[in-house]
């Protein structure tokens, strides 16, 4: 893996105004994404996890510039090695970036236009970006369909003729049409059935191996993230609270929130039930329009002390990883046992 990141995000912030009253005056802001720093290495997968409302989707959308960030920088390395700040680019200047960074959406039913054939849907980005003659585009659509495991002849059919898993394959084919370098997959398999989900995950990992794609994989499902991601970032109320290589984060989390998330995942293995205990989270998911003072997680944290109520912990380096907790060194948190331990106790 190259040391130069494909995309470096620095201090990325996205606030949505909260308006009220007859005149729609701004009375506050939802800090959906707040000062996030992240790197995505070429050909690697960054997993982004967190509960609903933590800002993970907004962050993904900022990266493809479906949202304009409020502040911060998004430094993208072009294939020729030059670095551009995508956060400030104008719509016109974004076109080459849009060809290289694509998105796969969660819902394969609403993200495909029902009135267009697969040829039109998959060919559209190529037409927009002037890929080639109509014949060349048709040829490439056929290749792409085969690549994602569908038949060439399907190109003339409409989305309604396909199942959810097949539609998601169409969405992937469309994302791949311009040979992107980074794909943002926002809950790309969450709406699919378990058996089909595995097929799509395998497909995405094969594509990465073949063409060195970078992935930002946004999901609430920690099992999937563990399977696909090289590095995982955990978000809470718009901020990254912990970031580490996948194995380390899952075996030995440093942030109490990560610990609680991991312990809440239901495990289908009856043997695992015995040696895992759920960490209780106090209260409900916090409201991003109303972030608590101090550590934003303190009202739900079982380890919270006075210091946590007063000071917001910065995201800092601890043992080569990054964590935002005052007591990261002192807490001995539990992760998920690896396969070795599992076999012994089962």
């Amino acid at each position: 893996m190259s040391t130069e990141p494909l995309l470096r995000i620095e201090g990325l912030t996205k606030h949505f105004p909260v308006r009220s009253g007859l005149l729609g005056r701004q009375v506050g802001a939802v800090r959906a994404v707040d000062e996030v720093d992240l790197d995505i290495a070429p050909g690697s997968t960054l997993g982004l996890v967190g509960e609903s409302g933590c800002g993970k989707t907004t962050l993904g959308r900022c990266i493809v510039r479906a949202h304009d960030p409020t502040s911060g920088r998004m430094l993208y390395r072009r294939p020729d090695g030059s670095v551009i700040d995508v956060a400030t680019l104008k719509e016109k200047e974004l076109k080459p970036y849009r060809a290289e960074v694509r998105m796969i959406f969660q819902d394969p039913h609403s993200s495909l236009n029902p009135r267009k054939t697969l040829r039109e849907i998959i060919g559209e980005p190529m037409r927009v970006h002037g890929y080639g003659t109509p014949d060349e585009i048709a040829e490439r659509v056929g290749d792409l369909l085969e690549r994602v495991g569908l038949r060439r002849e399907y190109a003339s059919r409409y989305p309604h003729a396909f199942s959810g898993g097949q539609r998601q394959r169409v969405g992937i084919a469309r994302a791949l049409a311009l040979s992107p370098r980074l794909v943002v997959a926002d809950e790309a398999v969450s709406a699919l059935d378990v058996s089909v989900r595995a097929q799509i995950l395998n497909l995405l990992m094969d594509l990465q191996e073949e063409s060195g794609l970078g992935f930002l994989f946004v999901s609430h499902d920690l099992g999937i993230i563990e399977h696909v991601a090289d590095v995982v970032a955990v978000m809470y109320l718009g901020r990254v609270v912990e970031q580490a290589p996948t194995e380390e984060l899952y075996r030995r989390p440093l942030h109490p929130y990560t610990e609680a998330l991991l312990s809440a995942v239901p495990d289908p293995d009856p043997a695992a039930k015995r040696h895992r205990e759920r960490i209780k989270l106090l209260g409900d998911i916090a409201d991003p329009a109303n972030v608590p003072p101090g550590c934003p997680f303190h009202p739900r944290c079982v380890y919270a002390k006075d210091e946590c109520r007063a000071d917001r912990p910065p995201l800092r380096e601890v043992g080569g990883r990054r964590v935002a907790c005052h007591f990261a060194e002192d807490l001995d948190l539990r992760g998920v046992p690896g396969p070795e331990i599992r076999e012994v106790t089962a």
Partner: protein
Amino acid sequence: MAAGDVLLEIEDLHTHFHMDDGVVHAVDGVDLRMRKGETLAIVGESGCGKSVMARSILHLVDPPGRIEGGKVTLHRPDGPVELVGAHKRLLRQVRWKDIAMVFQEPMASLSLVHTIGSQIIEAVRLHENVGKAEARKRAIEMLDRVGIPMPQRRVDAYPFELSGGMRQRAMIAMALSCRPSLLIADEPTTALDVTTQAQILELLRDLQDELGMAIMLITHDLGVAAQVADTMAVMYLGRVVEYGSAEQVLSQPRHPYAQALLRSMPRLGQARQRRLAAIRGSVPPPYARPEGCSFHPRCDHAVEGRCDVVTPRLTEVGGREVACLLYQDEPEPQRGGAPDDTPDDREES
């Protein structure tokens, strides 16, 4: 199963949808039994008929769906009643009082223009002869029991004022307000975050210990099923393909579909492998149910000339029931006679 223990018996239940393009056999001959106080998880992928099956119990299937046949017997303290073809009046009595249901999206089943409290009070007063003040007291008590903070105030809150997890708690409070003997929970945690999901599952377990009701949990998530289920039924295309104790089905599934389903799940702590064991193909469209065993086009063990011809029936294999021809070589398999039966299985059965 001792006769006095039985709560619900479903026999050969069929629910069909008469569509313009043909008839969809959403529930195609389901047999299930539930004991008092037990939790039965019904698992399967979308389109397997698990929700329609559960809704059929209370006649909550909307046209063009229709219950075509079978029996659903509910054993009440004063004797068994038959629900298929039952009179509306009997069904009204049974709903809430004996069997209550919670759904995936609480907002769809709560009234938006009434307070949480008034909806619970209405349900209680419809079924029990209590005064308004008494019913309100019950509502507050139930809200408190499901872990809603400040129940005296929340009783007058409207559903939109609550978070997703709180709404689902309120829905459970309402469902349990008449002390049903069976709670049917259809994907109750699917719309919730993992942490909230864990809280709701724990709540269901606690309430069950306390109130002694049985729970039928419909879910696509085997992990969720593993957390709460005593027994488990795996459904595929309208039929039960494996049915047994949750521990058995999860740790040693016998039906190829159940095995494949468990293998295809990425789960925590598994060695990171490059590929997941996916099931090939996808669930066939509902009009085109394959002949014979409906799983055979996707099954790695399918035997040509047999699995695509003969429809397997649920038969006992090592203490649980499996609908697969692989285990039906003999005309009538003896107890514990299946080829890869282990001694422990026999003890459990």
